[in-house]
């Protein structure tokens, strides 16, 4: 029931905030904040209770699950379930939800109530995506994310927001419809094989199509996920949508919504179509590596701070593609870490850009410079997240990218090398952010600039703590998700016995080692 509670709190408080805002705006904000805090506490309590259970050496299990009838005529069930991956992702969702409400505390003035309604429903959609175990329910939540996001971009965005909103909506809608067709294909295939028509994930896992049918159905899923991720060549909506949204929108779209696509790849594409997914592994990794390099190049060329951050996000998403299609346990760990770490660091960078915009009213890098003198604290934080983005050891992003590259190396050394170049080019644009904004000679009058206030300190400080904590103790995340990955691994090992042994070796290492080094050793042993 806790899963339903999580969703109901978000949806209910969304409606409540909308109604309350017409009487009292700050009360509405507090309602939204408290709702998200409650959800975060709920999820954390699950996490703490579960960590104990996992270390006892449970086999693959679902932490919590709820299943009810929904539309029996179509074989649709209201089935939510949470495993380690979902747990980590929902916790991230609520944490960043709190951050995005805090960031827009002052900057959103018009129609606060409707804004909070949209944000909360958006987060509910994302949470639902991470929990849904019925394909149609998944699709419903997938689409629920769309409409509130469109409103957030169009109403509260910057100058060209209407164009950006359209582009976002159309790209995701058509790709979503392709996924719907794929889901229906799977449904009909399953029904024709077994005689029972069902959209349930676990039922569908029982009879998987093979051959070219599986390939085409997989393509339907892939289109939806690759557009949302986004990766080459489906990324043209990204800079507009990321740059034109208000900061809360940018945070959610870059840090959470793109992760739903990564989650979809892990949860659906790999287990449902193991053979077909392997058959496209090489081109997929190649696309991922190309996206890493191309995104970095585009990011370096931007003049607009938000677009620069947007393209850096595009570049980092390439790692997820590389990791998923490497088909190694190491890389899957890395993908999960990357989902969390990138979510945190990209959110922080968008927040910093918002704080700068609040002060000088532009995102143009050429109108900034020399801010360190006035805003040393902000400069310090930017340094931390710039370093996170370029993958400095000790921060969460490093662990993630290292694991992914180590996993990819097992698959193909040449491709892995190509992707590794991304670590080098990411240095260029990350340092450029720092240099353009905080060093150089001042470009405009800096009298008005004030350093961070306490709300801003709270936001950036909490993000910094989490990103360093995860950089030092990544096994906290990895361990929780391990049973879920084991299940994935076993799914593949039916066809590949060699990997079973390797995963066992790796599990031994994870249980023995308590820090980063063990993970690294795991990479070497492979």
């Amino acid at each position, binding site marked *: 029931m806790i899963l339903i509670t999580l969703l109901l709190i978000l949806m209910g408080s969304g409606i409540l905030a909308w109604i309350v805002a017409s009487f009292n705006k700050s009360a509405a904000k507090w309602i939204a904040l408290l709702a998200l805090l409650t959800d975060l506490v709920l999820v954390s309590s699950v996490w703490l209770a579960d960590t104990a259970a996992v270390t006892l050496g449970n086999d693959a299990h679902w932490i919590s699950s709820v299943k009810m009838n929904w539309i029996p*005529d179509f074989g649709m069930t209201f089935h939510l379930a949470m495993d380690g991956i979902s747990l980590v992702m929902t916790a991230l969702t609520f944490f960043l939800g709190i951050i995005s409400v805090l960031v827009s505390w002052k900057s959103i003035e018009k129609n606060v109530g409707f804004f909070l309604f949209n944000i909360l429903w958006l987060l509910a959609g994302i949470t639902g995506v991470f929990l849904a175990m019925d394909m149609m329910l998944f699709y419903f939540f997938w689409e629920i994310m769309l409409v509130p996001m469109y409103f957030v971009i169009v109403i509260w965005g910057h100058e060209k927001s209407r164009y950006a*909103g359209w582009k976002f*909506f159309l790209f995701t809608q*058509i790709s979503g*419809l392709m996924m719907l*067709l794929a889901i229906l294909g799977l449904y*009909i295939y399953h029904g024709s094989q077994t005689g029972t028509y069902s959209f349930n994930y676990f039922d569908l896992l029982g009879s998987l199509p093979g051959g070219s049918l599986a390939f085409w159905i997989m393509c339907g899923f892939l289109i939806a996920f690759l557009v949302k991720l986004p990766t080459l060549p489906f990324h043209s909506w990204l800079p507009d949508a990321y740059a034109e949204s208000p900061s809360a929108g940018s945070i959610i779209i870059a840090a959470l919504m793109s992760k739903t696509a990564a989650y979809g790849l892990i949860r659906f594409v790999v287990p449902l179509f193991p053979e077909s997914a392997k058959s496209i592994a090489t081109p997929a990794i190649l696309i991922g590596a190309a996206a890493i390099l191309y995104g970095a190049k585009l990011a370096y060329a931007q003049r607009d701070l938000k677009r620069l951050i947007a393209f850096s996000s595009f570049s980092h998403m390439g790692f997820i593609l590389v990791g998923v299609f490497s088909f190694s346990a190491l890389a899957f760990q890395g993908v999960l870490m990357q989902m969390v770490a990138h979510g945190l660091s990209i959110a922080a960078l968008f927040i910093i850009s918002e704080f700068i915009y609040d002060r000088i009213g532009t995102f143009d890098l050429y109108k900034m410079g020399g801010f360190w003198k006035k805003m040393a604290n902000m400069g310090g934080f930017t340094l931390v997240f710039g370093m996170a983005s370029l993958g400095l050891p000790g921060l969460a992003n490093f662990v993630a990218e290292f694991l992914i590259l180590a996993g990819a190396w097992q698959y193909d050394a040449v491709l892995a090398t190509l992707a590794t170049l991304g670590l080098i080019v990411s240095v260029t644009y990350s340092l450029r952010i720092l240099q353009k904004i905080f060093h150089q000679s001042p470009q405009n009058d800096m009298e008005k600039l004030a350093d961070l206030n306490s709300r801003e300190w709270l936001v950036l400080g909490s993000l910094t703590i989490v990103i360093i904590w995860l950089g030092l103790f990544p096994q906290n995340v990895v361990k929780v998700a391990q049973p879920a990955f084991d299940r994935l691994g076993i799914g593949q090992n039916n066809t590949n016995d060699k990997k079973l042994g390797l995963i066992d070796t790796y599990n031994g290492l994870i249980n023995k080692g308590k820090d980063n080094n063990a993970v690294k050793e795991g990479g070497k042993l492979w």
Partner: protein
Amino acid sequence: MVTVEALGYIMPEIVLAIGAVVVMLMIAVKRNAILTNVATILTFIIALFFLINQPQQDVNVTNLFFVDSIGRFLTGLILCSAIVITIYSLPYFKNQKELKEEYYILLILATLGSVCMGISNHFVSFVISLELLSVSLFALIGYLRHESTSIEAALKYLIMAAVATSFILFGFALIYTVTGKMDLQGLTSFSSGSNMNFIMLAGFAMTIVGFGFKMALTPFHLWTPDIYSAAPAPVAAFIATISKGAAFVFLLRLFYNLGGLQQESVWIAFAAIATSSMFIGNWLGLRQENLKRLIAYSSISHLGYLMVGFLAISQDGIRSSMFYLLAYFASILAIFGMITYFSGKKGELIKIEDYRGLFWSKPWLAAVFTVIMLSLAGIPLTAGFLGKFYILTAGMGTGKIFLLIVLAVSSTIGLFYYLRVVAVMLSREESSIGEHIGSNSFMLKLAMAVLFVLIIWLGVYPSSFLQMIGI
């Protein structure tokens, strides 16, 4: 033979016929718009009551009518829609100069025609009900006779309907030449595979053209935008929903009985019509500035989607098209309800621009408006999505992948204009909406609220409705 028991199955139709006469006599005694309106609604409700209490059986009532679950479902749908349209009509015609009472007689007669069309089992009964519907509609479209556009639209519809009817009649005649049968059950027994000769195909072609006109499928759709924009909003709602739905159901019966769809050439012809309807409807809507014309193009594309369910040739295909009709009726009635709601002394607000900034002056209404638009666009959690979903399932079930991809792609094109309406409402400017009739009409508000709930309900938890269709 007509037995009393069999008559029980066509009680709803009999009630409608009596209701038309009663309302006419009532007007002769005392002219009162509200009283007539209430009497009309009562007629529909009594008819609905008889419909609900019918035993759930498939029954032949003479050679002419066949009452089965599809027929019952459609009759119920038409009666409910007619009630909604009657509710729209009272506040809408309040400001008009014309005599208001006769309008309701025509409305009942047009409803009677459509209901009969839905249960027709014979070419003759079909043609008679078609004419009953068309003739009433000429008068309804031109009801505001002081406006020249209204007369023009009525004339246009008259010519189009006459052409369509003659095509259908010719087609029926050719089918009769080959088969020697005019009732649908007789046609079923006629084995189509062996005798599919040229005359039969020509008969099919003629019939398809005629139905194409009636249902406004491309390339026979040209009348739709003009007539939608010129007709009074409640009448336009009637044309967009009831008359199209009734024609569709007879088309379904005809071709499923005749088995013409198994013929590849016939199937391809229908598929071409469906594909072009989906694309052209969505394409031409893109540049529309006039909301009613936009709805016209939207309804063209929706009928195209409906044809995908029809072309699936399966039980699921029938069920899905019935469910789609339900979702489509709800959304289209709701959007015309919105237009009725915002019409004032100066007439209807038919320009999209008129709704600029609505979100900020009337947030709740605008939210309802947005949900209706999203339902037409087929976004999840609304009726439009589940309708589309069911059609896609049916198509996937019989492997009509090409049509499904056309549906997906063209509906994304359509998204452009639905979103444009939403974006106009969202834009941050002072709304210029003045006096409108909706604010004073409780019944209109109630009808809008019911339709809104229905749209969400159908989109979230449609089980009870699906069982209702239960074919």
